[in-house]
């Protein structure tokens, strides 16, 4: 087992390994970060706002005099968890619908595609604005918004893949073996879509992290006192003028996270077949 992992890692390119390290690091932070936090992320512990690196506050204090390190540690799980979940949801939904269109009659295909166009063409941030105004901001809602926003994209890619795969001989073979649509979709087509979709997943993840931070800019994101990395940047943006760690650190965090995920996934798909044109 461990050998398997070791050889798997060995097979990765240099940048791939870097990506792996970053991803693992952030997954760790996301899972155990809150327990490492020296202070209660909500508590006003520092008298000075936008303090620099000090012994008491390794990453300084934020705009309310809260401990940046603690907030970072406990905020990571929103960015990582939420974005990961949303990206997964979006891709899964996209793939499922794509498979559906690949094996279903023309009109259903048309219908779904039109609906996707509808979703794409409504600007995501404004869409979220409306939804948040309707039901109020909450993690489930953000999850929903993010996945709905990026589902059409993965649907488009998945669909073009699925439609091509549906023409492959082995699918024809399955057809004239008398297989049902479900079997064809799940056992014959799906396995061959995974690789390209993985690469797409990486970019989607980045964009969701960004969408979330964009939403928090509009005051729609993760709600205080909690904060994901994006909202950490946002709420401390006034510290940018004085280059406060309170804003630099979250920004760096986001960058390393997103770049890490993509380096890793590029390395993975690079080993698998090159993916066809995305989106």
């Amino acid at each position, binding site marked *: 087992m461990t050998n398997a992992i070791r050889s798997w890692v060995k097979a990765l390119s240099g940048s791939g390994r870097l990506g792996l390290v970053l991803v693992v690091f952030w997954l760790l932070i996301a899972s155990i970060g809150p327990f490492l936090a020296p202070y209660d992320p909500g508590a006003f512990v520092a008298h000075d706002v936008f303090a620099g690196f000090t012994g008491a506050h390794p990453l300084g204090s934020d705009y309310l005099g809260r401990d940046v390190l603690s907030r970072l540690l406990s905020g990571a799980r929103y960015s990582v968890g939420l974005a990961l979940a949303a990206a997964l949801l979006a891709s899964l939904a996209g793939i499922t619908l794509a498979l559906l269109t690949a094996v279903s009659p023309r009109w259903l295909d048309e219908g779904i595609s039109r609906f996707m166009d509808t979703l794409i063409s409504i600007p995501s941030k404004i869409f979220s604005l409306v939804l948040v105004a309707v039901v109020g901001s909450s993690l489930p809602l953000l999850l929903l918004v993010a996945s709905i926003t990026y589902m059409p994209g993965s649907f488009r890619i998945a669909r073009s893949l699925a439609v091509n795969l549906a023409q*492959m*001989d*082995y699918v*024809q*073979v399955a*057809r*004239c*073996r*008398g*297989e049902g649509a479900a079997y064809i979709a799940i*056992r*014959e087509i799906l*396995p*061959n879509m995974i690789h390209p979709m993985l690469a797409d997943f990486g970019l989607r993840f980045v964009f969701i992290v960004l969408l979330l931070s964009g939403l928090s800019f509009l005051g729609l994101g993760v709600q205080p006192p909690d904060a994901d990395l994006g909202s950490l940047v946002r709420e401390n943006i006034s510290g940018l003028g004085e280059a406060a760690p309170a804003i630099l650190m979250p920004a760096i965090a986001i960058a390393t996270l997103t770049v890490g995920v993509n380096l890793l996934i590029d390395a993975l798909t690079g080993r698998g077949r090159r993916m066809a044109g995305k989106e």
Partner: protein
Amino acid sequence: MNNHVEVRGLCVKAGTTTIVEDVGFSIPRGEVLALIGESGSGKTTIAMALMGYARLGCRIAGGSVRVGDTDVLSLDEDGLAALRGDRVSYIAQSAAASFNPSRRIMDQVVEPAVNHGRLDRKAAEAKAVTLFRSLALPNPESIGERYPHQLSGGQLQRLMAAMALITGPELVILDEPTTALDVTTQIEVLRAFKQAVRDQGATAVYVSHDLAVVAQMADAIVVLNKGRIRENGAAAQVLERPADEYTRTLMAAARPERAAVDAPKATAAPLLEIKGLNAAYGTTPILRDINLTIARGATLGVIGESGSGKSTLARVIAGMLPPSAGSIRFDGAGLPPSLSMRSREQFRRIQLVFQNADTALNPAHCVGEIIGRPLAFYHGLKGAAATRRVAELLDLIKLPASLAERPCGGLSGGQKQRINLARALAAKPDLIMCDEVTSALDTVVGAAILDLLADLKRELGLAYLFISHDIGTVRAIADDIMVLYAGTQVETGRRQGYHGVARHPYTDLLIGSVPELRPGWLEEQGDRPAPPAIGQPKDGADLCRFLPRCSWRVGGTCEEFTPPRHRTPGGNIILCHRPEGASEGAS
């Protein structure tokens, strides 16, 4: 020593594995050298090395290549760029893929000449047109304006020749230039090539796996296997007195002696019976009035060139394309036209084996899964029982049971095709339809598959519908043979019937076009007589499809009336106005 091309100790590596090792040969100016071998023999790699080119992931690891007085391997990128397409030019295997689909033919043909500053655009185009003419291309003035997808494979192959010859190269490399073509086209293309190369006075390297074709083209032959030279000698010597063991196996495979199978006497109720079958994609008709029967344990060979509708026939029987007219009866009962209406049992009893095993096997599944699926699906076989059965099947197709765990990606073409077959067998079918199952394979491997099919037939009493473009292959396995041309059934009969003289003009052309394994055959063929002049074909009338190409057509009849069916002396039924078909006789 006035050899024009000298190759010494050539060695090409892909990563750490050596794919061409210590290859050396020389070609006198103006002669044609053939590189022959199976896939993976390194013949194409060597051909490309002559231009100092190695494919992605490969590198030329050692040796020397001299063309004229140029040491090719010592050239830098620019030097090579200057050499390629100018002094040394290349004709790729698949012209269809090697032409840029989004640019006009003319742009691509003149590109080498213009790019190397040989000719200016106008002159180049003029030259191109003359080449088109000499290569016997239809309307040479305008053909350059068209796009690749608007032209046939044979035309593209010749256009590629024009592109290769336009700079007047001293060395032309032809890489399997006719493999993708129908025999009837191949013969013309071969003729055109030979002529053109001779006119140019160019030295040529002809890469092929087909001995018979090589026999027509080459002065000398180099036999390759696994990147090494097995035999190197004059064409006549290698073909008539092959010194090397491997060469002999190649020769043997090239002339498949028919597997001795005695056709069972037609039982009362035929297994498959098709009457007046028509099929169409959308509005364009593909098959018209097909009638055939296959007895239990019998083999019907269906032959025709690409686009003749032979694959469609299989699809219709399989139920993937509902027929627009006619009836299909299987084992006495009518077969529902479309997939959705067929019972699992009906599916089970008819299995279709696709031409290309690479695409017919799902790369995501392992061998065990692929063969196991029909077992589970039709026979509800699971777990240990299934595993056992899979092992048996693998054994049946002469593959080690250990293969079951392997993903089918890593397997060789032959192995894949066997697994492709095993999947069909797993269903315990009564009828297997084989669509060009050997055409993607090397001759030797293909021959082995044919033997396997024959054995299985004997052991399991299977009936085959065997589809191929190669008359030789069909002859080797079929009891009855049906010739399709443009969707019409031009001739049907016992295998023996095709040895007789009287046959449909198209059948005649088909058989006559298969090169024989001896030098000089091509010359003997001479040019086919041009079709006699006839009146304007009566439009609307359901005329003979072969009319435009037929050298035997009869003015006043063929362009007027629908051809009737005749029984030839040989006992075959032909669709032709001439009862005696293509044979000389009272006309």
